[in-house]
């Protein structure tokens, strides 16, 4: 069944239009990837779904309900959690406290302090350190863990691999299967095509605010993807 249906949404930053009538869907249990170059509008789309940006035109339907006007904190309660671009962990809080605040609007589910620490052992080691002193990869793990603490039905991952070394990226993506096992649907945004396509059931490509390609990764040729990604 369709968990998330984004239909013909547009988004503006002042006069600048970032998204043009974009439509995507996520079925329950799916992992969907959105790829695209810098500035294509991928983060904008995620922020829109999370409620941080207003839509102008179009509908966002989550679990059958139109949620365009629902504020971010209520979307969390409904089960949409965002792991934002740039991690955005709270520097004044320790690692443990970041996880605990992730449970502010907790829903019932399998993710709690113990299970998140099992998923990312580094978080157990660094428990009492300030989040500010973590490395990039550790912060990313923390940000994902923090979002999981709310037990989301739909996890939004924004540019998880940005600025991280390949081995670290691989470790983070290695956690995805466990997250999926729990029944969480994942919508991930990536500039790193290979990583995204290998993790996803279906993928969309965004080019300058419009969907340029969609389909199952197996069915997309390299040439098609390159064309859709770069625009030629």
């Amino acid at each position, binding site marked *: 069944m369709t968990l998330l249906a984004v239909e013909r949404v547009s988004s503006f930053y002042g006069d600048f239009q970032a998204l043009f009538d974009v439509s995507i869907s996520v079925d329950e249990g799916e992992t969907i990837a959105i790829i695209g170059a810098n500035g294509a509008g991928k983060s904008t789309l995620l922020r829109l779904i*999370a*409620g*941080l940006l207003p839509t102008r035109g179009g509908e966002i339907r989550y679990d059958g309900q139109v949620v365009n006007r629902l*504020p*971010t*904190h209520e979307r*969390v*309660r409904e089960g949409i*959690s*965002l792991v*934002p671009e740039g991690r*955005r*962990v*709270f*520097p*004044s*809080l320790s690692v443990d*406290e970041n996880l*605990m*605040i*992730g449970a*502010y*609007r907790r829903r019932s589910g399998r993710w709690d302090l113990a299970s998140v620490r099992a998923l990312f052992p580094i978080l157990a080691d660094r428990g009492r350190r300030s989040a500010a002193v973590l490395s990039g990869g550790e912060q990313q793990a923390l940000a994902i863990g*923090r*979002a999981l603490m*709310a037990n989301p039905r739909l996890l939004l991952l924004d540019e998880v691999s940005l600025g991280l070394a390949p081995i670290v990226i691989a470790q983070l993506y290695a956690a995805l299967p466990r997250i999926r096992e729990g029944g969480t649907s994942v919508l991930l945004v990536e500039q790193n095509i290979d990583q995204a396509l290998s993790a996803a059931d279906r993928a969309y490509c965004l080019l300058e605010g419009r969907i340029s390609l969609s389909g199952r990764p197996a069915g997309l040729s390299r040439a098609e993807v390159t064309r859709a990604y770069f625009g030629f």
Partner: protein
Amino acid sequence: MEWLNAIVQGLLLGGLYAMLATGLSLVFGVMRLVNLAHGDLGLLAAFVALVIVGTTGIGPFASLLIVVPLMMGLGYVLQRVILNRTMEGGVLSSVLVTFGLAVVLQNGLLTIFTADSRGLDVGSLETASLQITDRLIVGWLPLITLGTAVVILVALQLMLDRTQLGRALRAASDDGEAARIVGIDNRHLFGLAMAIALGTVAIGGVFLGIRTTFAPADGPALLIFAYEAVIIGGLGSLWGTLVGGIILGVSQTVGGQINPAYQILAGHLVFLAILLLRPEGLFPRPGVRQA
């Protein structure tokens, strides 16, 4: 020996200033809001206490049981109905609205209570004192004031460190948008922060009313003292605010020892000196900016 006495009095006075300043510091930390009506709100609490004492006959300290919840409720409503709307408008909006609020409060109090000086009477406690040495006498009231200030600060720090609310406040103060992302309702949270702030300034206002006479025109002075304590101590640190309050208190009493007419001015001059030499304050929390 009068100098030692002056310093001790200043220390105790610092407790009062810290109480008045705590709310200002907390609200700025969480919402980056500088509330120009802060002093007038503290004074409002003193007047409310006056009315309660006058109508029910209970003592000023007992009146706190009514005044504090009342002021906290007022703070929550004020934030949600009016001040939350100034958040997007930036500095200009919040300064003008809180300034307008200060004008309304001050003149409102003036209209209702006239310009006469009032006091909150605690009977013999007002002058009761403790003999420390043969030359050093410390009043019980200032001692209780400092003690209360410390208790408030400890309680607040514990709340910030150990409770989910405290974590939420610290998170929102770090990154308002990320706070929303983890499910925090900022409008509600800001309301709570303002409620706490007004609760503490209410206690400070009532203690002030007990310690000295007060009149509607005194609001701005309270704001200025609270503000100076925060700046001297450094933004973002509750304990820094206590230190700031104490330094301000001591500056005033020592200045007053030189010449009673110089008391307030001495505090201002120390504030200006700190501003010139160490503008970030004495114990600033790293990363907190003024605007």
